[in-house]
Structures are given as C-alpha cells and as structure tokens.
C-alpha cells in the first residue's frame, strides 16, 4: 500500500521549488537512482534541495533509504558497493556524485554515521584530532568544539568507549565540526537517547547552523523533534520522496500527523505508544 499515492507521479524537483528560502542553494540532489552491487535498486528518483543556513530533515520508516541518500551525498556509498546510477548531485554548483569521501570532506560535506561511531580506544581529544583536516587551525577548532560541547572538555583525555550515549553523540558531532563543514549530514542522532538529551543536542545543532554558517541534513525517526528544529522536510517511502514541504506545514499535514507522527493528540499517543508504533511501522512498510 502506498501512503501517498500521488507521490510517485509527482514531477521531479517540483517539490524542491517549494523550498522558498532566500538563501543560496548549497546542495541539489536531482532525481538520483542508487543501486547496491549493481543490481539492488534502493533509490528511485530522489530529489532534494538544501540551502545555506538551513536545517532540512529527511523522514521515513526503517529501510526507506534515508541512510543511502546521505551516503550518496557524502560519497561513502562507494565503499559499500553502491553507486549513483542515474541523476546527479551538485554541491555549490559543482557536480560531486563521482567524488570520494575524502575530497567531499575537503569541499565541506561531512556525514555523521548512525550509531555513534566513536573510535573507542582513542581519547576524546584524539577522536577530535582525527576529524581535523587543517593542521594550522587545529587548536582554535578544538577550542570551538569544546565551547559547544562543554562536557567533552572535562574528559578530554578519557578513552571514549565507555562514554555515555549522549556524550558519544556529542563527540561525533564535534569530530565532524573539526573539519569546518558547510553541510553536515546527520544520521539519527536521537537514537536511544533520553528526550531531554535529544533536546539539548538538537539545540546545539541549531546554534551550529546559525553561528557556524552551516546547513544540516537531518535524518530522523523522531519526526516530531526533527520537524521542530527543521526549516524544511522530505518524507521518504521505499526509495522515493513521497512528500515535502516547510517543516511547520508538514507538522500540520493530516497524513503526516496520522501516519507518521502517529498522533492526533499527545495524551493519546503516550498510552497507545506501542500499539501505534507497531501500526505505523506496518503501514510504512506495506
């Protein structure tokens, strides 16, 4: 069952044109198709636009292809036997879909992988140093990171394998910040974190966007939280974009409310959480 039957026939880029921010366009994803191992078709005609100083959120159920979109943009797809077989990706008006991750990090695109992948046996400071791409500014960049993520400074010489989930999430964001990115691709930062911590981290991401002139493409399961800090949102379903719009419109959208956010009012959601969650999954996968 398709949730938004009109989604498939939607004209490419029409949605992205709705993204009427006054900022310059940073990234355009133009109808890309992605295959793994040359045969497994995972993305079909995915389009997207991220402007400067914007937080764009990408929503969708498990297996919809969100992580694959990020990997296509960051170039990491190639190390997983994946390939952009059609369409193109442009960053600052330059074609980037054939570039490798190392070049893309230098251009200003950095992906933060899902699952908080810290280098466990390195210290916090060493983790940050791995992320630094410019030796000349390492010191100032470190100070900047510690400024945004104060808890990290206190533990700078600690091995990171035993940090709490929240601390590890802060660390991977800080590590990405060391490369002075223009676009941060952030994959499910809220996974398994307490709501208060999610709020704190999203708050920091918001201020990074404003103060560091950075844009964020935020993949989330936690749609409510994501839409609350995003300017714009895209919804994916089995490899396609099925809906997009300004974040506040998406939040009010009846379909999104019912099927994705799984709530018509908060009180109900709490008591039926498990049931709703199950139902939602089933629907999205169907």
């Amino acid at each position, binding site marked *: 069952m398709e949730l938004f039957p009109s989604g498939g026939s939607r004209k490419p880029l029409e949605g992205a044109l709705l993204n009427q921010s006054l900022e310059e366009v940073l990234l355009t994803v133009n109808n890309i198709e992605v295959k793994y191992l040359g045969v497994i078709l995972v993305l079909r005609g995915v389009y997207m636009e991220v402007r400067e100083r914007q937080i764009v959120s990408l929503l969708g159920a498990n297996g919809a292809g969100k992580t694959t979109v990020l990997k296509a943009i*960051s170039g*990491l797809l190639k*190390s997983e*036997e994946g390939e952009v077989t059609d369409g193109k990706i442009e960053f600052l008006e330059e074609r980037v879909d054939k570039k490798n*991750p*190392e070049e893309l*990090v*230098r251009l200003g695109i*950095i*992906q*933060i*992988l899902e699952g*908080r*992948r*810290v*280098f*466990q*046996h*390195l210290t916090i400071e*060493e*983790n940050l*140093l*791995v*992320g630094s*791409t410019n*030796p000349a500014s390492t010191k100032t960049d470190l100070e900047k990171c510690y400024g945004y993520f104060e808890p990290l400074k206190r533990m700078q010489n600690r091995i990171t*394998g*035993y940090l709490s*989930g929240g601390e590890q999430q802060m660390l991977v964001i800080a*590590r*990405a910040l060391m*490369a002075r990115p223009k676009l941060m691709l952030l994959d499910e930062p809220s996974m*398994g974190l307490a709501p208060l911590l999610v709020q704190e981290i999203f708050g920091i991401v918001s201020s990074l966007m404003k103060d560091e002139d950075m844009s964020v493409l935020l993949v989330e399961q936690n749609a409510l939280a994501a839409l609350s800090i995003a300017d714009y949102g895209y919804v994916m379903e089995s490899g396609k974009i099925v809906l997009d719009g300004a974040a506040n419109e998406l939040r009010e959208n009846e379909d999104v409310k019912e099927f994705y956010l799984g709530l018509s009012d908060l009180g109900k959601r709490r008591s039926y959480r498990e049931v709703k969650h199950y139902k939602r999954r089933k629907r999205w996968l169907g």
Partner: protein
Amino acid sequence: MQMILQGIFTGLAVGAIYGLCALGFVIIYKSTGILNVAQGGLVMLGSFLCYTFSVTIGFPMWLSFIASVALAFLLGMIIDRLLFRPMIGQPLLGVVMMTIAFLSIIEGVTIFIWSVNYYSYSTVFPETPIEVGGVIMSHEYVWAMGVCLFFFILVGFFFRYTRIGLKMRAVSEDQLAAQAAGVGVKTIFSLSWAIGTAIAAAGGIILGLISMVYFGLSFIGLKAMPVVILGGLESILGAILGGIIIGVLENLAGIYLEPYLSGIKDVAPFVVLMIILIIKPHGLFGLERIERI
C-alpha cells in the same frame, strides 16, 4: 646462575628480533585487516637486499641497512598498489590466498637470484665479545637489541604523537567512520604496507647479522605468527613483549630442557601460546571490543 643470565640475554636479543618481525605484521594487520602470510618472506628478502648492498655492491654496513629498509618501504607501497588495493572489499579468504601466492613468488625470486646458499655480511663488528658480570655478549647481539629498541621507540612515537599515526589508529578501529571523517583510507593502507615491509626488512637484516643470510630466514620470520597471537593481534606493545617472551622461553627451554627432550626448544613457545590463549583468548594485550550502548 651464570647460565640462566646468559640464556636470558640471548633470549632477549633473539626475542627483540621476533618482536620486530611481529611488529611489521601487526601494523599491516591493524590497518588493512590483512593477515599477511608473506611476512616471513619479506623478512628474508630484507636480509638478501642488505647482503647485495653490503657485499655485492660494497656499501658500508650502515648504509646498506638504510638503503635496504628504504627500498623495502617503497616495495611495500608497490605491493599495496598492485596486489592488495584491487582486493579491497573482497572476501578474507581470497586476500589471504593472495598473500600465500605472494610468498611463493618472493621465495621463487629469491632462489632464482641468490640460489639456496648461505651468505654472511662482511664482518663489521669486533671479534672479542663484551663481558658483563660473566655474561658474554657479542657485539652483534648488542647491536641487534639496540636497533630493535630504536625501532620500537620510533614506531611507538609515530603512533602516539603524529597526526598520520593517529589516523592509522582510527582506521584500524573503524574504517568507515574514519573515511567519513575525511581520512584517506587508501593512503593509510599504502603507508601501512610500506612501514610493515620496511620493519620486516630491518628484522631480516638483523637476523642475518646474528645468524646467516639464507633461505630459512623466511621460516624464522614466520615466528611472528605465534608472537603476534600471543601479544594480541592488534597490539603493538603486545607484539614487542610477545616477541621477547617467546625469545627468552625458547632459549631457556633450549638450555635446560633440550638435553632431556630433544626438540623442545621449538615446541615450548607454542605450548605457552596454547596456555595463554586458553586463559586469555584475545592474547595478552589484545583489544576486546568495548560493549556499551
């Protein structure tokens, strides 16, 4: 007492060389994940290269050493580029088969060029050994220990304090995350092969110095295997200490047990290895994955 001290000294020197050979192996394994079966071959090749520089060409010993190690460094890069880069992402078994094939090529080429003779470097050290408290130390052994120690410190410093060393450690922990952070993984692989091969060559040259330059060094170089497993596959400190432990044990077993059990000298390290692995499956200093989420 005298005898035991003598045994320990010899064991330390030989063990340091085992440690050096194991170190080369660990550096390649840590970053690329490749179990390089050909490490012994590279050790042997190093000794022959140095022989060629010092005897055939006539360079002084120190220059021959540096030239061979530098050449091995380049060779390591070439090995990575030609043989192993195309195999990135291939199943482990195929990659290990590649190292086995590579070993037999090294051995074939060595026999072709140098045949299966025994050679030795023209003597560079004074004949009269140094004597400290009744322990007789030949100059070769003292130098062997010194050179090993130098390499241990150099490698330790490199991984601890340099940017590129840090990036190598990051790659060895999580390749994809390192790549995502902008680390050029291919450069790191290339450098790991270069360093691993250079260290193997250094080990081979020293082995040639205290014994002979001959085909069999390939098998002695393979002692790196139990040493590495004893120390823990990913541990640099483990490789060094593992080498020293095995060297000392082997020598003491040779002195004290050999008269009763002939052949025990070569078996003893493996017995110890088995016992340690039963108690600590990751080796003495191996990394256990930190489970936490």
